């Protein structure tokens, strides 16, 4: 294989959502974890389900199944923790997936103007044409947050 052949080959992670297979650029994937308890609290961001706790940090859970397959995911076998970046902000998001993921190398075809915004490219693998997902188009916009949030030490009260 020559250098020019390798130039168009990208590492991707294949993920199953319901009956369909999608791909995500490997450099966007942080880890694949077993489903843990999801914490839900009142909010109005429709795309988000709640948060999970991963190594002491909260990670928002974004279920892509309805957007991508039109159906809710019945069983969540894993959470794929992925990075998403908008401008200078970077944040992880947990994507519920229905099966194990696979790391592959494949040639990518860039998405055309007629493709949906959630498709960043296409790849062909084992005779199947697979959408490479654009996470920014599928997940809520990142709001820049002042970090870290500090706790306020208790004030001493003297009688």
């Amino acid at each position, binding site marked *: 294989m020559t250098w020019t052949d390798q130039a168009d080959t990208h590492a991707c992670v294949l993920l199953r959502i319901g009956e369909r297979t999608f791909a995500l650029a490997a450099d966007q994937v942080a880890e694949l974890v077993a489903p843990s308890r999801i914490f839900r609290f009142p909010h109005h961001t429709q795309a988000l389900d709640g948060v999970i706790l991963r190594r002491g940090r909260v990670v928002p859970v974004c279920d892509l199944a309805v957007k991508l397959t039109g159906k809710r995911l019945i069983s969540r076998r894993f959470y794929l923790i992925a990075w998403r970046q908008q401008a200078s902000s970077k944040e992880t998001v947990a994507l519920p997936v229905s099966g194990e993921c696979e790391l592959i190398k494949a040639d990518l075809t860039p998405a055309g103007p007629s493709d949906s915004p959630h498709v960043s490219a296409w790849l062909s693998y084992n005779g199947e044409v697979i959408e490479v997902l654009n996470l920014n188009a599928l997940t809520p916009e990142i*709001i820049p947050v002042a970090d870290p949030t500090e706790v306020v030490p208790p004030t001493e009260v003297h009688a």
Partner: protein
Amino acid sequence: MRFESTHKSPTVRSEQIILFRCSSQLLAISSASVQEVRSVDSLAGVASEIIVPGVRTVRHALQRGDRSIYVVNVALHFGLKPSPASLIFLLRKSRVALLLDGIEKMTTMTRLQALPAAFHNDERRWYRGLTVLEQNVIPVVNPAGFLTDEEFIQLDLVTNQDRQELAALASANAPEVGLVT
């Protein structure tokens, strides 16, 4: 010759919080922002009913001196299933009181994590952040996030009108005192 140690052990900053329940949801609030905890019964005769179409979370107001304190139903505020409320938190340096189900416990938090940037609606105003206690994620409410300035204006308008009407009624019913010459 002895030198005093210049090394200081890092002190963990902590904040006292009250964990409270509303409907089925556990929430936290800084105990420093709560001035008084009262039972609903103790305020039964003191609270006056108030209905402002644009502010559906407030149904009662308390009069403290010349200040009106608005009682926010926490379940309605967060869109939770209505539940029988038993306690009222009167917030410090605020004209807001919170109607809630009950106190779970008082504890301390050492770390407050920012709400993930993916959350971008009312919740950014509702919460100061999230804290992790015994492997549970608890939202820490923002005491200033219950009523907006516009909502205060609407509520004040109605309470001032009610007060003026009451004053007018009282002066109309008062016995006339005339000068007898």
